[in-house]
C-alpha cells in the first residue's frame, strides 16, 4: 500500500493567514460603508474597491489556448501555467516536432532518435540508454534493461508509454475510448506533427518563382 498523497486533516488557521484576506476586506468595506450611510457615491466607491479586491483575491485561472490544449487546460497560478507550458509546448524537437515533457527528455530524444552515432555506439555495446530520471546517473546497453531499471528502481508503471522518448507525447481525443491503444497512439502521433518541408530555402528558385505576385 503506497502512502496516500492526501490525508484528511483539520486545519487551524491564524487570523493573519492570507486565506482570510478576502473576508477581512469584505468586513472592512462594510465597516467603511456604514461610516457614511448618507453618501451614495461613497458606498458606490466602496463597492468598487471591494470588487477590485475580490478580483485580485479570486485569481482567475489561466487558460492555455495553444494547440493541442485549445482552451481545455486551466491553471490556477502563473507558476502552474509555466509548468504546464514547459511540459506541453516548450520542448519540441525541431526535426520531427515530437513534444517532450522536459529538456532532459528532449535531450534523450535527440540522442536516441536523431544522432547517427547513437545506433553505432549502442551496437558496439556502449551503455547509451540513459535512465529517464535526470537525477539518476545510470545508463544501459539496451532499452529493455533500461525499462527494467525504471520499473524496479524508480517505480515506473509497467504499462508506461515507453515510446515517449521516441515519439513524444500523445494527446487524447473523444474517440480514443473506442480505439485500440496502438491505433490511438499512431493517430495522435500524426496529429501532433506539423507538416514541414524537407528543406527550407530562401531566395528565388524556379518552383518558388510562381508563388509571389
Amino acid at each position: 500500500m503506497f502512502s496516500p498523497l492526501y490525508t484528511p486533516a483539520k486545519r487551524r488557521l491564524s487570523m493573519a493567514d492570507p486565506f482570510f484576506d478576502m473576508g477581512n476586506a469584505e468586513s472592512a468595506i462594510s465597516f467603511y460603508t456604514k461610516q457614511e450611510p448618507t453618501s451614495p457615491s461613497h458606498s458606490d466607491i466602496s463597492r468598487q474597491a471591494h470588487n477590485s479586491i475580490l478580483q485580485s483575491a479570486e485569481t482567475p485561472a489561466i487558460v492555455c489556448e495553444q494547440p493541442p490544449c485549445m482552451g481545455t487546460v486551466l491553471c490556477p497560478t502563473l507558476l502552474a501555467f509555466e509548468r504546464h507550458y514547459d511540459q506541453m509546448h516548450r520542448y519540441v524537437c525541431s526535426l520531427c516536432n515530437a513534444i517532450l515533457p522536459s529538456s532532459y527528455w528532449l535531450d534523450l530524444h535527440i540522442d536516441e532518435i536523431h544522432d547517427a552515432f547513437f545506433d553505432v555506439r549502442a551496437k558496439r555495446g556502449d551503455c547509451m540508454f540513459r535512465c529517464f530520471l535526470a537525477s539518476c546517473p545510470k545508463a544501459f546497453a539496451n532499452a529493455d534493461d533500461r525499462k527494467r531499471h525504471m520499473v524496479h528502481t524508480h517505480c515506473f508503471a509497467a504499462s508506461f508509454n515507453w515510446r515517449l522518448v521516441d515519439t513524444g507525447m500523445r494527446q487524447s481525443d473523444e474517440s480514443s475510448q473506442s480505439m485500440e491503444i496502438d491505433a490511438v497512439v499512431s493517430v495522435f502521433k500524426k496529429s501532433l506533427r506539423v507538416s514541414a518541408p524537407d528543406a527550407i530555402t530562401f531566395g528565388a528558385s524556379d518552383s518558388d518563382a510562381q508563388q509571389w505576385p
Partner: protein
Amino acid sequence: MPPRFKELYKPNPTGKDARQRRLQRESQLRSLQREQLFMGKRLRFRTPQESETESEFEFTPSDTMLIVRGLKSANHEERMEALKNLGAKLEQPSESLRAFVLEGACIELLVGFLAGTEAEEKLQSLWCLTNITAFEGGLAEKVLPATPYLVALLDSEDLELKDQAAWTLGNLASESQKTREYLYANGALKRLVEELAKTDDPMLLQTVCFALSNMARKPSCYFDQLFEMQIPLIVARQMEKFKRDLGCVKELSWVYAYLAAASNEQQIDALLETGAIDIILECALAAIEQDNAASEQASSSNTNSNSSSSSSSSSAPLLIPAIRTLGNIAAGTDSQTHVLVAKPSFVQLLVRCIESTSSRAVEKESLWVLSSITACCKDDVNAVVDANVVPDLVRIIEKQNFDLKKEAAFSLLNIAIVGGRIEDLPNEKLCFEFVEFVRSQDEELVRLGVQFISILFDQLPGDVGVGLLRRVAGGIDALETLIAVTEDDDTRSTVSALIDQYYGEEETSEMQ
C-alpha cells in the same frame, strides 16, 4: 472690461475644482491600504459635509508651518481649525505629512491637547491620533507615548472621548507584538475589559470589542490573561444582553474569533462552555435566512432588474467572524468538533452559507470549516451528507475558480475517505474535475486529483473506477505525463499503480 483686482479675489471652487475634489475623494477611498483592509486597523473619515469647506491641496512643508502655527495658537477657534484640517489630511497622508508625523513635532503637539482641558480639542486630537495609527510605516509606533493618556481617557465621563480613545488603542494593538505588549504593560487590557463588562452603550461596546480583538492577536506574552480575566464569559453576557443589535453581536463575535484562533485545548473548552456559541449560531442563522428571504423577494418582484449583480450580502459582516470562530473550534479535538456538529443549527448554518452565493468570502470560509468537520469521524461526515451539502460541493467544484474548487475538493475527498461514502458521490462529474486538477500542474491540486482517482479505483467495485477514468478525455495521459516529470517517488509509485491497474483492466477485457 475685466474687474481691476481679479487676481486678488479668493478662488471660489469652480465646477472643475469641485470635480477635482470629488475625484480626489474617490481615489482616497479606492486606495484603502492593506492596513485598513487586511490588518484590522480602522480609519475615521470625515463626512463629505465636513470636508467640503477645507482645501484639499497636497500637504506641503508650508502647510506644515500653517498647521503648527494653528495648533500653537492662543485662540481656540484657530486651534480647532488646525486640528480639523490635520485630521482631514490624515485620511490619506502624503509624504510630507508622514515626515511631519515621524520627524516633526506632530505627536508632541497632539499629546499636548490630550493633557489639556478642552474636551472638543481632546476629541479632535484623538481623531488625528486614531488616523495616524491607522497607517503603516512606523506611524503607529510614534503614537505609543500617548498610551497613558489614552488609557486615562477610558475613565472619562464623555462617551465620545472614551470611544475615540478605545479606537486608537485598537489600531495600536493591531500594529505589532511590541505595541500590544506596551499597551498591556500600561494597563490598557485591564481597563478595556472593565469597560467591556460595564458599558451599556452599543457604540462604545463595539469599539471596545474592536480594541480587545486586536489585543487578542498573537503573538503576545499575555494571551492566557485574556482567559483569566474571564473575557469569554463577559462577552457571552453582553451578547445575551445585546443580541438584538447585530452590530454588537458582530463585534463580540470578532473577539471570540481572535480568541479561538490562538487558544489551546482547555481554552477552546472554555469558549464552548459559556453559551456564546449558541447565540452566535442563532443570530448568524437568522441573518442569513433573512438575507435569502430578501433576495428571493427582490428577484421575484424585479424580473428585469440587475439587482443580483450589485447586491451584496448584508449578513456577511456577521457571518465572517461567526464562521471563523466556528472554524477554529471545529479544528480542535474530535470531541470539540463533535460538540459543534451536535448543535442542530451548526450544520444548518454551514449548509446555508455554502448554498448562498452572495458573499464569496463566506462561501470560502464555510468550505474551510466543512473540510475540518468532514476530516473528523464518520458520524460527523454522515451528519453533513444527510444535510444535503454534496450537491453544493459539486456545483462549486464544477463552476467556481480554483480557490473555491480546492476547498470543496477537500470536503469531497474527506467524505469519500473518512465517511467511506464514495458511492454516494456523483463520480462521473467529479472524475472529470479531478483530472482537471491533475492537468492544472499545481502541486497541491495534482495530489488531490491523484488521490481521488486512487480512491475510485480502490473503493468502487470491479472496474467501475477505471471505466470512469476512461471516459475522461486526457485522463490517463495526464497521469502518464506525471510519472515522466515528477521528482517525488511517492507520487510516482501511486500513479504507476493506477496506470497499471488501468491498462491491466483493459488488457483483461481485450483478451475476453
